């Protein structure tokens, strides 16, 4: 083999060695990078960004080292450099080999001593040694790195690194979606009747709106997989402009809407606001009244109405009741309707023409004002004022100056007394009057006496009525019967123009009526007779047998406050270790409190807000619990008896 051939062969070997060692060094360095990453991860867990950089760094390091090795071994491409490389290691050649492989000279042009000297170069041994050395180092490095890597166990870190790398380098279309529940908007559309404006809430935790309001939750991202659940009612979200949307109607009772997107969940409280019924106050008439005579003319009525949202219309209601005993008639009527056109406050006016009400003595007129709002969801809300009661006294000739209707015995007594006075006057004037005139007057007084007697008998009949078609004497009725008998005698005498004979009977009758008036102020409309039952006489005289049913125990009323307190206690134990679960639990407790204990709901809202911010909620929960439970109390007094003592 000529020196040229030998050098050429050496060149091939060296070039191959450079390539292989470049690969080996690339591998070794890449493994070294991974080893460093593992070591660093053991000291302090690497951030996802650093983890994602392991692979590219290792590859980069490998490429760098391979490039370095290739660069350093680039001279293996050139025959002359290979020959020089041999010459460096065998200086005794004195560039004979370089000259021998110089392509400018052919073999024939070279001197034989030169060729012989070049042929004597131990190229193979040098190449062999160099190859072994280079490959050995590279292989050793790989082996060491590989061994260390095997000991450290790179699989988990590399897997995580690959995931992180893939996540960061994956195109947006292929990356897993973040939660579609954040950001979240809620658009609240109040019921049309309320004429309130639409509201948009950003990142709502509570949506408070009128019952029947439309609530539309909106978020970004596709709708598929997003659901809204209120209790057992689960509905999927729909595609909307720029994202997904889910609509529901504000229910009557507080509830929680659970929004779900795969493993993500979000709770929003629905806090319905009730549209209150209008508040109506009757201003005129200002008081209940009893008229002594049937009132005539016009009566002004006025009422004020207010509403939290808006009034629709209102009117006055009138009830006129007339009758007695078992027979009553009631006529109902209304005033003209007044429209309020959604005003928050308004005044109703009306005038009642009492002449058209057909009022008679004994009638009762009820007046009240009514107002409505526009609520066509749960209503309409109807507000009703207090009722004014206007009574018309039964006896038009009452002289009573009190507001109460007159007492019949009083009026009979007055009538009898008046008659007695007139009769007395007639007796004194007998001598001055013509006989006919005297007799005429006496006859008139006889009729008046008969009138009074009939009134007494009417009262007697009422007193003696046992309610089942029979009659029964009472002490008072016996007394009044006596008076009636005396009146009969007086009437007879007056009828035959003998007033002086009638007078004693009339005086006695008057005395009886006076006694009856003072002892028994009998009045059908106002005071019940204080009849005293003789208990001892009738005690256990009843004959009918009994068979009492056993008493059934009461159920203990459900203590809503205690149940809420227990839920809050559970959340208090949970929030340190699982704040998300505690937040959900408190959210549901707040919804329960909205109905049962509204003041506690507000306190729970504060606790939830603090929990979302990551602050401690012990004091907020303590305040909430205090609202639900009776407070601790000090017991004063000697501690020598369990319980008892006077509480502070």
């Amino acid at each position: 083999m000529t020196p040229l051939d030998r050098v050429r062969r050496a060149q091939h070997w060296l070039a191959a060695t450079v390539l292989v060692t470049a690969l080996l060094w690339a591998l070794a360095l890449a493994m070294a990078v991974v080893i460093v990453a593992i070591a660093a991860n053991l000291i302090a867990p690497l951030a996802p960004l650093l983890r994602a950089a392991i692979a590219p760094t290792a590859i980069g390091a490998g490429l760098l080292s391979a490039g370095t090795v290739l660069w350093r071994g680039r001279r293996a491409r050139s025959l002359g450099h290979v020959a020089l490389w041999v010459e460096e290691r065998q200086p005794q050649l004195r560039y004979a080999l370089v000259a021998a492989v110089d392509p400018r000279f052919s073999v024939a042009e070279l001197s034989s001593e030169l060729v012989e000297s070049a042929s004597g170069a131990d190229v193979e041994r040098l190449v062999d040694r160099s190859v072994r050395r280079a490959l050995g180092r590279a292989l050793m490095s790989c082996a060491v790195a590989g061994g260390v890597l095997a000991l450290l166990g790179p699989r988990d870190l590399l897997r995580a690194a690959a995931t992180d790398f893939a996540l960061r380098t994956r195109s947006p279309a292929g990356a897993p979606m973040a939660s579609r529940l954040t950001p979240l908007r809620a658009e609240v559309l109040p019921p049309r009747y309320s004429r309130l404006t639409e509201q948009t809430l950003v990142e709502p935790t509570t949506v408070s709106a009128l019952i029947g309001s439309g609530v539309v939750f909106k978020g970004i991202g596709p709708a598929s997989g997003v659901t809204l659940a209120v209790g057992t009612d689960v509905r999927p979200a729909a595609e909307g402009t720029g994202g997904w949307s889910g609509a529901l109607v504000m229910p009557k009772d507080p509830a929680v809407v659970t929004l779900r997107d795969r493993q993500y969940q979000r709770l929003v409280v629905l806090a319905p606001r009730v549209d209150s019924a209008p508040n109506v106050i009757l201003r005129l008439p200002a008081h209940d009244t009893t008229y002594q005579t049937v009132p005539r003319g016009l009566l002004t009525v006025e009422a004020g109405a207010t509403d939290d949202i808006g009034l629709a219309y209102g009117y006055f209601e009138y009830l006129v009741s007339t009758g007695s005993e078992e027979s009553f008639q009631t006529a109902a009527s209304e005033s003209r309707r007044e429209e309020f056109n959604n005003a928050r406050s308004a005044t109703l006016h009306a005038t009642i023409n009492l002449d058209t009400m057909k009022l008679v003595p004994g009638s009762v007129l009820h007046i009240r004002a009514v107002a409505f709002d526009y609520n066509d969801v749960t209503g309409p809300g109807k507000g009703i004022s207090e009722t004014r009661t206007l009574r018309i006294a039964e006896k038009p000739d009452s002289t009573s100056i009190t507001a109460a209707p007159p007492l019949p015995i009083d009026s009979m007594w007055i009538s009898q007394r008046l008659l007695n006075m007139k009769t007395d006057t007639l007796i004194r004037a007998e001598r001055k009057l013509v006989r006919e005139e005297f007799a005429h007057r006496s006859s008139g007084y006889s009729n008046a006496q008969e009138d009074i007697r009939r009134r007494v008998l009417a009262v007697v009949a009422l007193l003696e009525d046992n309610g089942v078609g029979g009659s029964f004497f009472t002490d008072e009725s016996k007394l009044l019967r006596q008076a009636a008998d005396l009146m009969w005698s007086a009437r007879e005498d007056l009828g035959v123009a003998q007033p002086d004979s009638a007078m004693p009977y009339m005086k006695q009758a008057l005395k009886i009526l006076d006694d009856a008036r003072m002892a028994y102020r009998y009045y059908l409309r106002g005071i019940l007779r204080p009849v005293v039952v003789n208990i001892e006489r009738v005690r256990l005289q009843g004959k009918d047998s009994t068979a009492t049913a056993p008493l059934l125990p009461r159920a203990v009323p459900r203590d809503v406050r205690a149940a809420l307190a227990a839920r809050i206690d559970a959340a208090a134990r949970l929030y340190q270790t699982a704040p998300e679960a505690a937040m959900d639990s408190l959210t549901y407790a707040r919804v329960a409190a909205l109905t049962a204990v509204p003041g506690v709901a507000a306190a729970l809202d504060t606790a939830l807000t603090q929990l979302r911010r990551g602050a401690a909620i012990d004091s907020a929960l303590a305040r909430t619990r205090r609202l639900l439970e009776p407070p601790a109390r000090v017991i004063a007094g000697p501690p020598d008896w369990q319980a008892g003592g006077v509480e502070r």
Partner: protein
Amino acid sequence: MSRFVFATAEYVSGDWESAPALPENLIDSVARYTSIDVAPVGVNVKLSSPELFDHPFVWMTGHLPVRFTDAERRNVKRYVERGGFLMIDDHNHDVTGQFHKTVTEEIERTFGKMTRLPNAHELYRCFFVFENPPPNTHHELNGYGDDLLHRYLDAVLVNGRIGLLYSNKDYSSEWNFHAETKKFMTQDPTKFGVNLIVYALTR
């Protein structure tokens, strides 16, 4: 210790005093059949006054429309919720009449809808046993009112107990007579009144 005092409700809007003999009659019946310490005379008590709460049993009746004042409504609600027993009887026995319409409206405004009392309710067995309750009156089919037999009583229940009992059966007319008259009767119609009072005192 308080004895049982029969109280009649006095309210502003109607003829609350329309059954003046009823208190004496029921007091008599309670004394005849039980050993309950009962006051021999009844009282009237205004629904709007604090005195209402001194009488956990109150009888209310009338013919005319009933419109509670705000004070009366507040008191009645509190009274029933605390354990009082308010008996309201339509003296017209007329479900088309204004007493029934107005008083049921007032009851619903104050308590919500009433509950129909089942005829097996312990009220009908708590002292005397009534086989076909509620016991009828002679007035229901007397040609006045609605001329119907009313087969149920309605109630407002508080924790399972009757707090307010409403009747269309016109017990006010049935029991509005002098107690002495009972000796002429083969059947004492006031026995159900004793049941009402025993129920109120024991449940």
